[in-house]
């Protein structure tokens, strides 16, 4: 099938999925109290007026993330899930009430699908993984363990609390931040010394720090699955060429969060200047790069604000403006829809953003 046909087919699939999800969340027998109440306050009816993704983009305003902070968790429970205990996952936050997303099986579905994008060469089955990074109340911890399990693996965990790191850096306690990172690395090295591990999930900075203290290839690492902070082209190149020794260790950058799931990446290398483009797990989640003033996608290969729409039966979140900006990239054969590239904090060129070591 030609790429044009693939793009057309995926767009049709997205439209059908959009219609199905709208019907689910806005029907009294299946929808959540939040969206049912929200719809009553509008002068239009989503069930009648949203038949495809384009309608969704035109009709829905931006999702307000404060709703996830301020409202009780129960308002997000779809009728179909009523009475079933849910997981509560948190995102971001340094002080005060964090944003929360509830869920049941979404993380399993998302990460099982993601597993299909990993190679057995770099992420061997029936072995051991280690995650070094934010666990705690994040969806990521369970998701990574599930991903390992899907591939017949078990996973070790070393925690790192990014909220604490942000506070240390914001208050210029750089020595403390470094000591805390060393503390995490020490624990990871202890695991690597005493246990056999073939795949790592960690953040770029922690990966770099680990590689400075241990020859990861000799330690048996075959693949690294990395996300969490900005990776510009130079940094991605450094991680691939030097830390992962030019492909001896498979390097899989990811972009994701508690609200979306996990976006896969287009292969990177000198041929595309190590510009990492991510593709959302469409149709369950859709990333657009838009001009927020016009609500229209920017031209390909130009900068815009990242907008996320999540559409699962557990959670509906239309047009949430991420705090990121990115380049809009063209569809490709394995993900025939728009990608987001060189993601960085919104306004990163104008101000210093606290990202820190995690």
């Amino acid at each position: 099938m030609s790429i044009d046909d693939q793009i057309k087919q995926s767009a049709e699939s997205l439209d059908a999925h959009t219609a199905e999800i709208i019907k689910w969340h806005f029907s009294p027998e299946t929808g959540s109290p939040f969206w049912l109440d929200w719809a009553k306050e509008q002068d239009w009816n989503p069930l009648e007026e949203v038949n495809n993704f384009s309608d969704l983009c035109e009709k829905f305003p931006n999702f307000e993330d404060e709703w996830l902070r301020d409202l009780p968790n129960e308002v997000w429970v779809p009728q179909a899930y009523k009475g079933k205990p849910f997981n509560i996952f948190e995102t971001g936050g340094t002080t005060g009430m964090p944003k929360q997303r509830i869920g049941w099986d979404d993380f399993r579905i998302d990460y099982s699908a993601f597993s299909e994008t990993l190679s057995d060469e770099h992420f061997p089955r029936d072995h051991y993984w280690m995650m070094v990074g934010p666990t705690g109340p994040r969806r990521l911890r369970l998701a990574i363990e599930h991903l390992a399990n899907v591939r017949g693996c078990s996973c070790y965990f070393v925690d790192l609390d990014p909220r604490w790191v942000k506070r240390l850096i914001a208050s210029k306690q750089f020595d403390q931040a470094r000591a805390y990172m060393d503390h995490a690395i020490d624990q990871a090295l202890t695991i690597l010394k005493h246990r056999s591990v073939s795949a790592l999930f960690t953040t770029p900075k922690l990966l770099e720090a680990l590689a400075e203290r241990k020859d990861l290839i000799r330690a048996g690492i075959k693949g690294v699955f990395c996300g969490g902070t900005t990776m510009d082209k130079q940094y991605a190149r450094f991680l691939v060429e030097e830390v992962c020794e030019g492909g001896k260790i498979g390097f899989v950058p990811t972009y994701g969060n508690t609200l979306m799931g996990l976006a896969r990446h287009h292969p990177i290398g000198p041929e595309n200047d190590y510009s990492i483009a991510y593709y959302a797990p469409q149709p369950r989640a859709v990333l657009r790069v838009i001009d927020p003033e016009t609500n229209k996608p920017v031209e390909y290969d130009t900068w815009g604000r990242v907008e996320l729409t999540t559409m699962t039966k557990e959670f509906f979140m239309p047009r949430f403006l991420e705090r990121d900006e990115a380049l809009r990239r063209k569809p490709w054969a394995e993900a025939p829809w728009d990608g987001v590239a060189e993601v960085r904090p919104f306004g990163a060129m104008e101000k210093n953003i606290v990202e820190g070591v995690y």
Partner: protein
Amino acid sequence: MNTPHIPCLRFGEPYRSFNESEVNDYRDGSTKATLSQVNAGIIRRDLKQIAKAREALAKLSTRDLVDISSKAGDLFLNEDLPLGEGSMQSAQDYLETLSSTSGLPHVMVKRNMVKIHYALTHVELILNGLTRGINFDILDQGHGEQAGAPVCFYPTTDALGLVMPSNSPAVNSLWLPSIALKIPIIMKPGREEPWTPYRLIQAFIAAGCPKEAFGFYPTDHEGAGDILRLCGRALIFGDKSTTDLYAGDPGVQVHGPGFSKILIGDDEIENWPDYVDVMASSISDNGGRSCVNASAIIVPKYSKEIADALGKRLGPLKPLPVDDPDAVLSGFANPKMGEWIDAALDADFEGCGASDATAPYRDGSRLIKAEGGTYLRPTIAHCESIDHPLANREFLCPYASVVEVPQAEMLSSIGPTLVVTAITQDEGFKKDLLRASNVERLNIGPLSTMKISWDQPHEGNMFEFLYKRRSIGVAA
């Protein structure tokens, strides 16, 4: 002409980063070069392999490296040398480009080039001064006999870290002996002045020095911090807030403001008009940008008269075209720096106890836009007390205070001072000066504070910084 790109150098090998900064003309902001910016991780990884750089230098004798340094000096001063990827830069191109991004007039760049050339062609003299005459064979072997006593030296580090400034090209002369001492360099160049260190490195390589000895890493704060933290020995240049951070670190030699001064004794003060020339040149040479520029004139009396005479001499000075051989003032690569200094001076003059002795002789404001750039005209502050905020300050422009202090109190009141020129013939005062622990370099007599001796380090001894002596016994 295409804008040249200056790459990072990793063990002398060019490495082009995807991240670049621009080096811009101080007048119109046009881009004169782009500069590869590397992440700190690259520096940390290279430092793990630094032994290969030391080994490359160790293959050569000190004599070889002294000769290479001398040849590099000639190449630096006169020849075409590589600039970035595939481009060559003539000495004249270097002079004009550096002038256009630093604001230094051509005549000052040339003087800096000549200083650097002198340093490179006199490395033997410099090593002699630093080591107090140790035979090169002893340096090569690590031990031997000097003046009938066994001596043994070992390196304190595998690399000399350098976090360079952008204010004056000649500061690069400080690290030059490191190569002959067989210690590789790991450098973060000044953001606005990559030209001089890059050209020096290319001159060394062209002269036969192993390229592995050179790490040139334009980088961010994290990278600079890692150079200082991970090289066993490092030099940092910066203002007081920067240098204070490393003041207690024996591995970091701090080069901050010099607070250099001219002191006139009771016995010579009646002759003060004879010394106006040396005072004026000490304040204004090299655009007043050096740590060895005088920033205070301390006298037992006649402070008002001296301030007025200096105001009359320096106040009328104006920016001249960059290629005018009489140009004295330098433009600001970062105009905001000029604006900040001007505002700081105005704020301190507003209070009591200090007056601007240059103002009556200056037609117009201190901060001016001229010759396409931003300039600060000279400022002489007459201060009523050494405790006035302007009495012991240093700015990146021709600036000095003139203040009265009784001779007996001068040394205790001046604080840490890089260069003191003491104009006196009073033997008692001379003895006090020779005993003073707060003076790094002492000139006795009417010598410019700018006069330094290459065979006597005025700010830290590079040999003692890079090598330590230990006792040794060798079985017969």
